[in-house]
């Protein structure tokens, strides 16, 4: 039996589009409690809007079931579901005035005229637009149109209100105001809200529960605090807030090596486990050189108003720090992190993550080697112009110094070789684990990074190897510095 508190439940929902066979949502499971404010958060194309559309009834799941109050609503068309939507671009009816727009849903239900009058008046009051009944839609500002769209959905007293990036088209100040107002409305009305956004701050501010999604899959479900403080994997850590993310391994009880140093931590994993460590920029402390866990040189300092954002280079590792204390570029500093501020995660799929740079010819470079791929393929909507520069989707020229590319590569795709010059980078085997049908090696490179490589052959600890990393197996993500 489901608990009485669950209003809607999504069970193993998948959606494959017939047009192009694209799998937008993959085995999505979620329970939403009555009155909850749930946010689907993820980058564009992660399947959050598709999931919302399946709840509304505009798209039909390829697999799985949706239960509303314990009953399947898969077969119900959108107009028979007690669910209303606030659309991204409002979708108000331009040939009707404000009153007719809001009354539209009530009229479909044959509500008596005086009742419609009363309800429209009340809901206009709720969105602070009393007396706007006779106004034409195109005479309203974006913010006002947004409020009307919310009023038009709320007037039907839906069991669930779906909001598809409703604040995306508003300017920053208006967006902040509307966030608070929406939260306020949610508290006042007690209706269940399901909210879609790609803005992590918006999600953290408003939600009771956040569902972080990427490539059609749920990455983590939890309260805003959980998701910020205890990200389940590197994707969540990277997407929510700013983070320093390092690959590393456990070197002893509550001891982890990453970023070229051995840190004490509070997460207990077996020695030799390959891990991902997340450290928030505000949790890194700058000390005198030699007094921290690692040393480095200040590479850049940016004043951000309430804090400085300082980038320190330690070996080839880059650490971003937010602090109220200033530092000078070129200073030698020590860095330390409190054990409880280091979040250690099991590197489940052992994906190797490393940064490649964009050189001044707008080509990708790693460890002095050119990576044979095109930047225009990595950055959506970008174009290479005749003078060789690359512009992004907005037509702005890419500045090589301000971006880097996060490369991910699976352990199975890397090969080891004795021929030192053949690979992209060289290192020594620092750990090996037999995994039944293959060995899993950890190679500690000259750039103080650890790579995981799966290989069927036996190599020895301490062997010096070069890593063959095929460019066509790499996945690239653009990161701003």
């Amino acid at each position, binding site marked *: 039996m489901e608990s009485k508190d669950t209003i809607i439940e999504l069970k193993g929902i998948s959606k494959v589009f017939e*047009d192009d066979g694209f799998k937008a949502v993959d085995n999505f499971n979620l329970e939403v409690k009555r009155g909850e404010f749930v946010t689907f958060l993820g980058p564009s194309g992660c399947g959050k809007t598709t999931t919302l559309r399946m709840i509304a009834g505009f798209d039909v799941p390829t697999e799985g079931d949706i239960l509303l109050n314990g009953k399947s609503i898969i077969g119900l068309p959108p107009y028979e579901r007690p669910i209303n939507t606030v659309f991204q671009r409002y979708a108000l009816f331009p040939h009707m005035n404000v009153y007719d727009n809001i009354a539209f849903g009530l009229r479909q239900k044959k509500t008596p005229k005086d009742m419609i009058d009363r309800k429209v008046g009340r809901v206009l009051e709720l969105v602070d637009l009393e007396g706007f009944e006779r106004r034409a839609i195109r005479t309203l500002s974006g913010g006002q149109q947004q409020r009307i769209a919310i009023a038009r959905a709320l007037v039907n007293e839906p069991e669930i209100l779906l909001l598809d990036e409703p604040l995306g088209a508003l300017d920053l100040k208006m967006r902040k105001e509307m966030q608070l107002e929406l939260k306020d409305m949610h508290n006042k009305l007690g209706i269940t809200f399901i909210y879609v956004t790609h803005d992590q701050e918006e999600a953290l501010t408003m939600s009771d529960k956040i569902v972080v999604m990427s490539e059609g899959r749920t990455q983590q479900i939890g309260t805003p605090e959980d998701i910020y403080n205890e990200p389940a994997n590197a994707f969540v850590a990277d997407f929510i807030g700013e983070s320093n993310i390092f690959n590393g391994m456990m070197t002893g009880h509550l001891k982890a090596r990453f970023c070229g140093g051995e840190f004490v931590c509070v997460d207990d994993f077996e020695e030799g486990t390959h891990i991902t460590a997340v450290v928030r920029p505000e949790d890194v402390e700058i000390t005198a050189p030699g007094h921290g866990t690692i040393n480095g040189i200040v590479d850049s300092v940016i004043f951000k108003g309430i804090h400085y954002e300082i980038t320190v280079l330690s070996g080839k590792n880059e650490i971003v720090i937010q602090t109220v204390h200033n530092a000078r570029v070129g200073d030698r500093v020590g860095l330390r992190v409190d054990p409880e501020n280091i979040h250690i995660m099991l590197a489940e799929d052992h994906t190797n993550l490393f940064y490649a740079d964009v050189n001044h010819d707008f080509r990708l470079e790693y460890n002095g080697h050119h990576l044979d791929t095109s930047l225009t393929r990595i950055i959506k909507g970008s174009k290479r112009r005749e003078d060789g520069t690359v512009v992004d989707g907005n037509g702005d020229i890419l500045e090589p110094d301000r971006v880097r590319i996060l490369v991910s590569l699976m352990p199975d795709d890397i090969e080891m070789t004795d021929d030192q010059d053949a690979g992209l980078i060289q290192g020594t085997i620092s750990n090996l684990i037999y995994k039944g049908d293959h060995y899993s090696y950890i190679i500690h490179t000259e750039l103080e990074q650890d790579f995981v490589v799966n290989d069927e052959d036996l190599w020895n600890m301490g062997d010096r190897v070069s890593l063959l990393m095929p460019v066509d197996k790499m996945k690239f993500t653009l990161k701003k510095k």
Partner: protein
Amino acid sequence: MIWKTFRKMFLILVLVFLYLPILILAVYSFTESTNIGAIRGFSLHNYVTLFTTAELIDMITGTITLALAAAAIATVLGTIGAIGAFYSRKNASRFITTLNQIPVINADVVTGFSICVLLVVALNISKDSYIPLLAGHVTLCAPFVFLSVMPRIQQMDPSIYEAALDLGATPFKALTQILIPQIVPGIISGFALAVTLSLDDYFIAMYTKPATFDTISTYVVNATKGAQTTIKTALWALSTVIFLLVVLIVLVTNIRSLRKANMEGGRRAQ
């Protein structure tokens, strides 16, 4: 300076080329002349003939009735087709749009002849039933209605239809109360286009019309071949009337759209 005068001259030349023929016809329609060449005094007798000869009046009302009926049916079909194509899957939509373009480009004489072959010869429908004629004109007009409605649908916010469903409207109500009102301008211009196409048509009517019925086009072609001078000169008057009507319609629509643009411009400035 010389260049400037030359430019003006060129423009005047083009305008003369475009409008002189119809102006000559208009001038002669107000005279007693039976031939273009010699002017023999002002007279309205052509207009009297035009509006009193039963044969001419029947022909004109017949043509207009046909145009309105064909345009009405074509508008319904074209609009439904455009909406259907828009909401079809990508490939189906592209297929329908391409199919729709072929009759637009195809020669009218081929369309007329093939309809005649299909309906009259193969299906044995009598031309006297007017069905082949009407079907022919609907075939002629519907693709153009499709083309004038489609851009309107594409300009529309695609989520408006879904918003209507979301608020509890059935697909039919969403279509009639929300979608169609949005595309009315496209439907009206499609209808107007259909009317003019039907009025203009000669080839399709020739192949499909009943023997006793004439549209303006077929009538004019026959009359200019014949020897009845009173009718022939009355057609000058008809041409003038049609021309003046067209000028009037163009002027009115242009002024209206100009006013609308001004009003919207003013509103934006507020």
